[in-house]
């Protein structure tokens, strides 16, 4: 299955891209996806926030085909 992944702010700069489409096995959690991205890019990033389809999710949230997954640093608006 495929999911689209978005990065924002300092994480977008670290990744060198704003978005990508990633092929995944079935039954992958959002935190497993995150770890595989960190491994493949060989980077570290603390305190990541995770959203799926524009809603915050817990790290064990199971992804499904077509999900829009977003990773970003702690928010600093207002």
């Amino acid at each position, binding site marked *: 299955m495929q999911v689209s992944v978005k990065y924002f702010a300092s994480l977008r700069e670290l990744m060198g891209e704003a978005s990508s489409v990633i092929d995944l096995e079935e039954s992958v959690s959002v935190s497993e996806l995150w770890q595989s991205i960190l491994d493949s890019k060989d980077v570290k990033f603390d305190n990541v926030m995770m959203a799926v389809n524009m*809603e*915050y999710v817990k790290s064990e949230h199971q992804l499904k085909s077509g999900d829009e997954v977003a990773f970003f*640093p702690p928010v600093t608006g*207002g």
Partner: protein
Amino acid sequence: MLIEIRKKPFNAYAEMQYYLDSLVIDGKYGATANFVGTMRDFNEDKKVTYMTLEHYPGMTEKHLNAIAKEAIEKWQLLDVLILHRIGKVKITEDIVLVACWSAHRKEAFESCRMIMEQLKSSAPFWKKEETGSGAKWVEKNTPGF
């Protein structure tokens, strides 16, 4: 209820008046609490010359809507207005405006502050500050309590 992300500078009090004129709550509201966040020339003792605000189009609006709706329900508010800047923001420009209308003051005060805290801690916005010696992402917001 109005939630808007603005690319251009806005004037908070002109916006308050303009939005209020569109409401049909005359005689019902006795209390309006309103918070305006404005661009300073310093942050954590560093001089800042301007900043750039990024957001997550779609999610930011959706998330602010959810915050506002929850506040309206919890405090029985008559209306809520949230405006937030994105893009390049200069010193003295307004960044955020939150306003809450209610019959009595307790509800207006509490909801306005809670919306701001939720916005600060969870709405997908990120600030990058230009300090004169280079641009830097802000790592976290200052505590509100």
